[in-house]
């Protein structure tokens, strides 16, 4: 029979898979997943994990995004409105098209938290240590928040009747809605802060009492004194201090005299003053030393001020004043302005023959604030008009820390928030040296060259809508409107996520050797391009040493610069004895 006649056919048929061959031995370098700082993170005054929370937004994990934001900044809704956003200035995306609208996204998340009344996680343990914080502005509140989160008892002393400091008394409500401000402050106080409003720390004795009563003290009383122009007589009724003006405005008080207002200065305070005055129906002129493109205020502020009819006289200075029948005449001259190496440093040359006159009913200088360090003379050392502190924000007096405008020339709200956070870390370390580890940031931020921009088609930045120009001047409602949900999703999708893995699986799919393992997978994926029936996305990866040949394609195809090649002997796990 055929069956019995049948001879064994050649067995030259494969019997196994190529996995028996350990191609990992070919390798000279091996990819390594790492989290590297993004340029935005490096530039952020609060060291926010920007790439992380934007990715959470892009996955629609809004609460998670908010918690990530809240790690470093208790004021996302505020910062999303008024931060001077050095993050955006540093953003790698501008080398492709335009920077990512980080602030608009932060505001989107911050507002959502308020709308949905999201709560912070409960404080895990209470600590016996107590800290007194003096000053309820952004630095003090930030420090209070961070210390309270760590379980410390926190007492907050504020000399005014409301918290917020500059955020309330310096920034007009058309930039920062008061309901937002109140809500974000309230959320901090609700953590269990021992609040003492309208308590002024009158003298050194009072500070010493606090120092004795509490385990540590944080001073963040701001820079409350206005700098004065020598050529201006501040006793004149037509001279108005901008800080006082803005503070009064925040209470709804109109201190202006006459119809023609002249604001001196080119920073945010000057613009805020001018735009507030415009909203009261006044004709407003700004006189600034700097040429328009070098004005210290944010470009958007200048643009909006121009839109609102504020006139700018830039690159000029006032030399003298003369009161006339129909107002004050200011004798001005054009100057040649050159910026110095340090912020706030500059040089000017008066351009003789360029003299001109301006006329105003009220003159409001807004050229900056300074700290009254004389109050603490003998107790706290001063340095160039600021409280002298070490790297951990501790003053010359052990146990007393200082921050905010009082200790720094970085006069931005978010800088103050960041300083408050850093001081909280330092105080925590001071009080509990074994638990708080100071953050060390040594790695260089991920550069544009590490980003595979192929994965990012040109996409214009999502613009926030603005209130119609016609209605803006009718009151003090916010000019900048929040992004729509859709807009936020698109904007979040523009983020390169520099140095932070987005679990896009590109490394997994671009490995010709199947040498990357998804450590775990998630079916949840909110990204807009995610196909309904697509594969499960990884939530972490590892390299199979047995098979990785070290080609580097995963690195090249990583859209976020989250993988680097490191030299490697090329030994596979099964040949660990290889030497």
């Amino acid at each position, binding site marked *: 029979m055929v069956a019995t006649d049948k001879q064994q056919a*050649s067995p*030259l*048929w494969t019997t196994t898979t190529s996995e028996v061959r350990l191609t990992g031995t070919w390798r000279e370098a091996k990819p390594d997943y790492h989290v590297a700082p993004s340029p935005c993170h490096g530039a952020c005054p609060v060291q926010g994990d920007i790439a992380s929370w934007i990715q959470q937004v892009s996955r629609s994990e809004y609460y998670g995004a908010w918690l990530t934001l809240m790690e470093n900044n208790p004021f996302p809704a505020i910062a999303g409105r008024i931060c001077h956003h050095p993050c955006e200035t540093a953003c790698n995306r501008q080398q492709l098209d335009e920077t990512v609208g980080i602030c608009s996204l932060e505001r989107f998340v911050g507002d959502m938290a308020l709308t949905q009344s999201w709560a912070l996680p409960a404080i895990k343990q209470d600590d016996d240590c107590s800290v007194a914080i003096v000053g309820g502005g952004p630095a003090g509140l930030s420090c209070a928040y961070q210390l309270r989160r760590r379980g410390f008892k926190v007492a907050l002393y504020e000399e005014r009747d409301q918290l917020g400091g500059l955020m309330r008394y310096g920034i007009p409500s058309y930039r920062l809605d008061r309901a937002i401000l109140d809500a974000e402050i309230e959320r901090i106080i609700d953590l269990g802060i021992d609040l003492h409003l309208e308590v002024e720390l009158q003298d050194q004795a009072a500070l010493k009492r606090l120092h004795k009563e509490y385990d540590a003290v944080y001073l963040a009383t701001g820079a409350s004194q206005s700098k004065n122009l020598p050529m201006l007589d501040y006793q004149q009724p037509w001279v108005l201090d901008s800080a006082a003006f803005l503070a009064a405005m925040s209470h709804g008080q109109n201190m202006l005299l006459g119809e023609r207002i002249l604001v001196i200065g080119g920073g945010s305070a000057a613009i805020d003053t001018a735009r507030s005055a415009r909203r009261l129906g006044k004709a407003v002129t700004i006189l600034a030393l700097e040429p328009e493109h070098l004005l210290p205020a944010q470009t958007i502020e200048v643009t909006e001020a121009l839109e609102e009819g504020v006139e700018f006289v830039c690159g000029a200075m006032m030399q003298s004043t003369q009161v006339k029948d129909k107002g004050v005449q200011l004798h001005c001259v054009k100057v040649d302005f050159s910026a110095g190496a340090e912020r706030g440093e500059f040089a000017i040359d008066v351009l003789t023959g360029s003299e001109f006159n301006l006329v105003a009913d009220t003159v409001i200088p807004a050229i900056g604030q300074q700290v009254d360090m004389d109050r603490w003379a003998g107790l706290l050392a001063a340095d160039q008009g600021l409280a002298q502190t070490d790297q951990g924000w501790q003053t010359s007096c052990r146990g007393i820390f200082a921050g905010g405008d009082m200790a720094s020339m970085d006069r931005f709200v978010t800088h103050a928030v960041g300083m408050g956070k850093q001081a909280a870390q330092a105080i925590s370390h001071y009080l509990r040296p074994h638990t708080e580890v100071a953050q060390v940031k040594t790695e260089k931020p991920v550069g544009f060259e590490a980003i595979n921009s192929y994965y990012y088609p040109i996409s214009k930045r999502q613009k926030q809508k603005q209130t119609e120009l016609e209605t803006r001047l009718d009151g003090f409602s916010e000019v900048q409107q929040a992004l729509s949900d859709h807009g936020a999703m698109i904007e979040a999708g523009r983020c390169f996520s520099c140095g932070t893995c987005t679990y896009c699986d590109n490394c997994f799919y671009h490995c010709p050797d199947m040498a990357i393992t998804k450590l775990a997978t998630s079916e949840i994926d909110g990204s807009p391009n995610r196909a309904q029936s697509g594969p499960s996305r990884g939530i972490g990866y590892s390299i199979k040493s047995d098979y990785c040949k070290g080609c580097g394609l995963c690195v090249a195809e990583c859209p976020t610069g989250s993988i680097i090649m490191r030299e490697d002997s090329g030994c596979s796990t099964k040949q660990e004895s290889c030497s």
Partner: protein
Amino acid sequence: MTTNNDGTLLSGNHAVAWGVKLARPDVAPLYPITPQTPILEKIIELQDKGLMTVELLTPESEHSAMAAAIAASLTGARVFSATSSQGLLLMHELLHYAAGARAPIVLFNVNRTPASPWGFWPDQLDSLAQRDTGWIQLYSETPQESLDTTIMAFAIAEAANIPVMVNHDAFYVSHAVEAVRIPDQQWVDQFLPPLQLEHKLDTQTGRSFGAPIDQAAWNRSRREMCDAMTKVESLVSQTGQRWGALCGRNYGPLEHYRTAQADVLIVTMGSMCGTVREAVDEMRQQGQSVGLIKVRLFRPLPGAALREALVGVSTVLVLDRNYSPGMGGILHQELKSALFGMEKAPQIHGLLAGVGGVNVAAEHIQRWVSQYAQAEACVDSIWVE
């Protein structure tokens, strides 16, 4: 088609086509070439008439035909193809491939002179030149034998996992018409059950064939072919006997014709055997003790059977309808080596007879017998007229 009690009048090529029909191949890649084309046309005709069902491929060349044949075979399909001369030579690369893949394909080759110069005449050089490719080679003398051998070839190929090439001569067999008994399909189905290939392309096992291998594995593949080849002679015998038991026509690796007490034996293959029979009959009548050994199985050459057949024979005349330049007749050479070391080996004369299809008549053969029976054999083949 004329049918009487003796069978159906069929040409050799049409007899092959009927054999193919009865063997129920799954796939048949076919490319036309003179004088094979009637096989192709008849198969297509049988298919068109609904008498058979086969996946017919008509590719652009014999090369592709054989490439498709091998691949189809490795899926477990029964595969048939046919060709001739240039076509077979074009397949050469793949003949090696088929054998190495142990694909049980049946290829029918109509022996024709290979070019150049161009010719369309019976000559076995085309297939004999493929003797080292690893195929089993069978040579048929008549249309009936071609039909029977086609069917048996499947049984042999599938039992040995070695492809089989069946050959018959151009025109003398391919176009010669004779009464052929077409066996019942039932008999054939009993004789040749559906193919069950042990190693095949199968999505269930995922095993692969043909991947680059190392020297040792290649060496082993040849040793395995060697082992398989050693069993072919008896397999051909058994298969021929089984076939004989079913339909009364027995076939073996060799056919002995009037060899009893023969002093002179003529050894040859294919259509020449018919002429030799005629000559043998004449000479026997004249009292000469002459017989014929017809070699049906050329590869593997049935050496033991040949030695046995030639015991006591004084003279052997090998008639080669082929010529290997620089060497001579191929069967002559093969036979000499088959008898190596044989005690009292006969004198072997190699006669290059009918090369290029020239006519070889019975009287020629008689003349050669008388001419060479007493002569001392020389090692080289001799051109004869």
